[in-house]
């Protein structure tokens, strides 16, 4: 994280704190909002996100659930259909697979299938990603995979500002929204205006403007990609870095504008390569700006392997700064 002076009216806080502030703020503003999930209350959240909220809001609105992912996600769906605004925390994306039937067959089908009579204004938050040596069953990166499903929105806040600001907008959305919080970001600190609040969730953000190549990424990979851009700058490659922020829908306009200008692109995606979101983004470039491309589009993704525990193997399995740098240089035919 770039270290800068904290301006007056600015606070420095962690991504974790920013998520907590977002929940607290939403709970205060709208009494239909409540948080429900495993260990969100007494334990304070498996990543300490909801610490302190039980004391402030009580056990009805900071609702500890049994280990019943399908059951309580479905309960969130029902409560949302009846007019509440639940935030379901699924702890981590790894456990969300147990709730997938409810998400896929109930939450996302109801509006269309009922001819718009019922909707599911539900927010589901979960941690995602590898990097903490938690091994194969606890290191999935499936946010891009979820983005395949019509009927949901998929958000991936990468900055403290977005961690603070996306939740409220997601709660305003009349349809189910999934928010993926990369586990490697919780301890990251960043600056936030003291009056920071909701942020738009429609547009991708250009986190670093550049002329020579577009590096497109999201979530936990944003910071690695920015670091790679700095390295590339040292090699006279001026990279533009785009943070997708929303994985469904994708903001094609921002992506294509950038690529049409730089004429070269790399997509950095922590999902397994085959069938990852990176493929969709690349394919859209082919469909929309094929004639503008000066070189094949590059991808930096995770190796196609259940993420191993050993640190060196895990590191090798997921995108790292040198891989991004190398991929970008390869586009320019440089080794």
């Amino acid at each position, binding site marked *: 994280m770039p270290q800068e002076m904290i301006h007056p009216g600015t606070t420095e806080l962690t991504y974790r704190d920013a998520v907590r502030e977002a929940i607290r703020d939403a709970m205060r503003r709208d009494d239909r909002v409540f948080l429900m999930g495993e260990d969100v209350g007494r334990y304070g959240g498996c990543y300490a996100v909801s610490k302190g909220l039980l004391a402030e809001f009580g056990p009805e*609105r900071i609702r500890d659930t049994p280990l019943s992912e399908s059951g309580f996600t479905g309960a969130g769906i029902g409560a949302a*259909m009846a*007019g509440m605004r639940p935030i379901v925390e699924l702890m981590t994306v790894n456990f969300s697979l147990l709730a997938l039937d409810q998400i896929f067959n109930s939450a996302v089908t109801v509006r*269309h299938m*009922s*001819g718009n009579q019922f909707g599911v204004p539900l927010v589901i938050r979960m941690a995602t990603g590898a990097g903490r040596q938690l091994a194969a069953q606890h290191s999935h990166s499936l946010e891009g995979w979820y983005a395949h499903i019509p*009927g949901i929105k998929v958000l991936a806040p990468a900055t403290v500002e977005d961690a603070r600001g996306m939740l409220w907008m997601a709660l305003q*959305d009349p349809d189910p929204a999934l928010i993926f919080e990369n586990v490697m970001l919780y301890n990251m600190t960043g600056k936030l205006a003291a009056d920071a609040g909701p942020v738009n969730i429609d547009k991708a953000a250009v986190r670093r403007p550049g002329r020579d190549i577009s590096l497109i990424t999201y979530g936990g990979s944003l910071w690695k990609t920015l670091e790679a851009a700095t390295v590339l700058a040292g090699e006279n490659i001026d990279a533009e870095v785009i943070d997708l922020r929303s994985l469904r829908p994708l903001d094609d306009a921002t992506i294509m504008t950038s690529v049409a200008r730089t004429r070269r692109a790399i997509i950095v995606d922590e999902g397994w390569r085959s069938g990852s979101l990176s493929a969709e983004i690349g394919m859209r470039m082919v469909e929309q700006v094929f004639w503008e491309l000066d070189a094949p589009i590059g991808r930096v993704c995770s190796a196609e392997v259940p993420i191993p525990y050993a640190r060196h193997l895990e590191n090798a399995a997921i995108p790292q700064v040198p891989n991004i740098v190398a991929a970008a240089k390869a586009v320019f035919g440089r080794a």
Partner: protein
Amino acid sequence: MTPPTDKPRLSREHMLGLLKQMIRIRRFEAKCAELYTQEKIRGFMHLYDGEEAVAVGVIPVLEKRDRIVATYREHGHALVRGVPMTTVLAEMYGKQDGCSRGRGGSMHLFDRATNFYGGNAIVGGGLPTAVGLALADRMRGDDSITACFFGEGAVAEGEFHESLNLAALWGLPVLFVCENNLYAMGTALAISESETNIQRKAACYQIASEAVDGMDVIAVEAAARRAVQAVRETRKPYFLECRTYRLRAHSMFDAQLYRDKAEVEVWRHKEPIVRYQGWLEANHLIHPEDLARMESEVAAEIAEAVAFGEAGTWEPVEQLTRFTYAEAAAQADR
């Protein structure tokens, strides 16, 4: 036949009403079967013949503000709840005049006006929804209750277990109604459950329960009254097992290799309409004219529904992706 215990409510009019609702469902299903062979109705369709006493016994006991969650075998529930037969049938025709705009079909009847939260084609899939509806009511302090219908096949699903536990643990006003018709498609209860006494499942979650002869509409209604009252007053879940039987095939694609014709015949003698009608006759509570009137009213209603379905229009194909997400106006509305 269970003698009516709750006399004052069981006016003759009321008693005839029960019969009429059952006949209404039976005749409607017959029409659906006919329309299916004519290919007016397509997809999967599951008829309710033999089980009418359940929906008819339970649903009228609910208040308008209460909520209902059903399965793919839900024509009867929708009709008894008051979803117009016209829009139910138009739905199966796939017309935009249908209660789900023609997008749901037989398995997905929805109706906001009557708090009918849909047919659900995933076995067990509706139970968590019901828990959530009741949770919303609890959190807001509303006194609505949610009735959730499902078959005994759903009892094997993990979601059954999770939902009953959540409802009991959190004290949620859900009336779980298990329509135990002894088969899940071709799988007999004994092939699906190590404990075949379904009512006992409730006790595992400390949920009050009752099992009732689901072929006896008076008994079902009386049990439903007790159940609804218990949920309304205690704000806790209640489990009602209705022991019934499906007289037709599981769906329109079922050759019924898994059960004997003789078994079906035995149950045909217990079926709820003939039985109840016989009881009404024996007690001189019904006259041939009553029956004739009912039949002709039902026939007229069905004819009207068919005409409505036939006259219905197709949703323009340009609207295919509409309401995958809410529209701006709908957003403001929510």
